[in-house]
């Protein structure tokens, strides 16, 4: 074996360096962020402990509004999780080359947001120490979990989606884990050697890997759709006015994709800025994601219009009462929701200059998710406040406990993401480098045009 020093391709090494820049030892800013997020999570845990010891009366939940901010959070976080894996899978199946730098941020977002979402039904339970009643197993109490309850469908769907999303994320990372293994030392090397499973990148491994990626992408999309459809059925299969609607599952799925795509763009902007990935997350990526957001916003607006228009035209008294109460009591949030989810994205994203402006995209995508959080609230609370019997009409105001736990959920998500970017490659570097390796210039007439050699 020769000891000759290998003059490796600088561009490949440089690309590895740049795309793995997030793995460099953290600075003070990162520790400060972790300390802040950790403090918010700790405060949320304290609030949850307070709720466990004092009982559910410390929340704002009371008859008739027994589903409040916890379920709003649950629906919101499930929705947020929707797009990461789904967008990644759709772009992978459609072989859109611009997808490559985006994949990892999207897939990781799904895993962390669905994990946060899964906590809220448990927090909402009340007697949290009997959470295992949700797990379907024979028991000595002669009590069998009721499969006719949509809550159990949620448990099944979320479990499937968490496991599927983790597998999808891991599958996408496998070749990159081998690269990190080869560039790391100490405990990191031991960890990545274990996770890379001995991947060498043989021609056979790549062939099987590509087929498996395609199959997993095809399998995860219907799971993603089913999860949010099942969450929608939590509402739609009841006879509560405002909920009992056939359009709810597709409406929820569209809303989930809207909020998820917006969150992916927000995270892309943050990652791009924090790790100086301007060369990889280019205005082209924001342009394309902006177009996607525009289309989904149009779809969401159509679905919302259809839902409201049907209620308005039929003028069924109890349905109309709920809508009137919602628009009267929550006028400002309703307007913010319509602005954030519909008016602003549709008008602004028509313009290429806006789609390619990082600052504008940050504002728009943040507003979309503010709008989506409000939308979840306006779906849940007004319907329960003004149900069929006027003598039990009421209202709801979340307590400090619910607000603290909500803040902790956002901080917890950010905390998980912050740890993830410091431990794992944040850009799908094998995917990006593959495109670079296959880029060729093709002479056509008087010009040389860029092209991609070979099929995927």
């Amino acid at each position: 074996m020769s000891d000759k020093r290998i003059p490796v391709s600088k561009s490949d090494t440089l690309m590895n360096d740049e795309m793995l820049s997030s793995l460099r030892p953290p600075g003070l800013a990162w520790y400060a962020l972790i300390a802040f997020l950790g403090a918010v999570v700790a405060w949320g845990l304290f609030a949850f402990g307070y709720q466990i010891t004092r009982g559910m009366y410390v929340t704002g939940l009371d008859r008739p509004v027994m589903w409040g901010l916890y379920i709003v959070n649950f629906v919101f976080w499930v929705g947020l999780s929707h797009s990461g894996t789904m967008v990644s899978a759709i772009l992978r199946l459609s072989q859109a080359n611009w997808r490559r730098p985006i994949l990892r941020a999207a897939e990781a977002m799904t895993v962390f947001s669905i994990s946060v979402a899964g906590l809220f039904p448990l927090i909402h339970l009340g007697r949290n120490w009997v959470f295992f009643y949700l797990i379907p197993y024979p028991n000595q109490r002669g009590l069998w979990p009721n499969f006719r309850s949509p809550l159990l469908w949620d448990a099944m769907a979320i479990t499937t989606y968490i496991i599927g999303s983790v597998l999808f994320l891991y599958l996408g990372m496998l070749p990159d884990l081998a690269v990190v293994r080869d560039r790391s030392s100490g405990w990191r090397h031991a960890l990545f050697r274990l996770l890379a499973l001995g991947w060498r990148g043989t021609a056979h491994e790549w062939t099987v890997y590509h087929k498996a990626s395609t199959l997993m992408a095809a399998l995860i999309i219907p799971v993603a759709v089913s999860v949010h459809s099942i969450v929608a059925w939590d509402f739609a299969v009841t006879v509560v006015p405002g909920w009992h609607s056939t359009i709810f599952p597709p409406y929820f799925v569209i809303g989930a994709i809207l909020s998820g795509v917006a969150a992916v763009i927000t995270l892309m902007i943050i990652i791009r800025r924090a790790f100086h990935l301007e060369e990889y997350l280019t205005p082209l990526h924001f342009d394309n994601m902006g177009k996607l957001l525009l289309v989904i916003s149009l779809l969401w607006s159509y679905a919302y219009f259809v839902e409201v228009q049907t209620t308005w035209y039929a003028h069924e008294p109890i349905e109309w009462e709920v809508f009137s109460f919602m628009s009267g009591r929550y006028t400002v949030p309703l307007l913010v929701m319509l602005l954030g989810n519909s008016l602003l994205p549709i008008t602004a994203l028509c313009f290429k200059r806006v789609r390619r402006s990082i600052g504008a995209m940050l504002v728009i995508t943040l507003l979309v998710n503010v709008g989506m959080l409000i939308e979840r609230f306006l779906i849940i609370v007004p319907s329960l406040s003004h149900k069929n019997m006027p003598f039990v009409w009421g209202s709801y105001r979340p307590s400090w406990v619910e607000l603290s736990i909500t803040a902790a959920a956002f901080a917890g998500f950010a905390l998980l993401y912050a740890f993830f970017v410091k431990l794992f490659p944040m850009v799908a570097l094998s995917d990006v480098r593959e495109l670079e390796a296959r880029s060729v210039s093709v002479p056509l007439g008087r010009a040389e045009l860029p092209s991609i050699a070979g099929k995927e």
Partner: protein
Amino acid sequence: MEILGVFADVESAGRAVDGLLGEGFTEAQVTSLSSVPYPDGVLAKTGRHNTWFHWLALLGGIGGACAGFLLAAGTAWVYPVQTGDKPIIALYPTAIVTYEFTMLFAMIGAIVGMLLEMKLPSLKKRLYDPAIAEGCIGISLSIHPGGEAVICEAGVRPEECIGPVSSLSAAEQKERAEEVMRAAGVLRIIGEVQP
């Protein structure tokens, strides 16, 4: 015995593969190691377009469907909860639980099948060079003991997988392969001691 030549770029690695084939080694003996995928034939030809791991995904899906159905319908049957005139085994929830289990086990089957087909995790140490992660290309050659036929892959005709070079001793084959790799511009050659 296996040897691994490390090349700086695809062109020199491609020349090495052509040289090895010209010397009498077969496609089945040569494989490439790279940190990015190249279309089949750019370096090595896998000759294995028919993968089998998806059958495990199908098997997982069928198993999951049975498990989901038994969990929802079977337990409702064993522990009946009578609610008005509702059926004990309700179609809607049974279908949902069956569907979720089908998809879950199909995904697990796909991943397990993929790893099995790739022969991962690898329990024995195999030839590798970390420079491959930095863009270098590895060309690996399996050398079979002299006089023996090269193991053929399914679907490959025997005359294609028995190279004329296999009549030489393993040491001579290795020497020839190293010469070809050096001529193609190899950066380093890593050899494996035959157990």
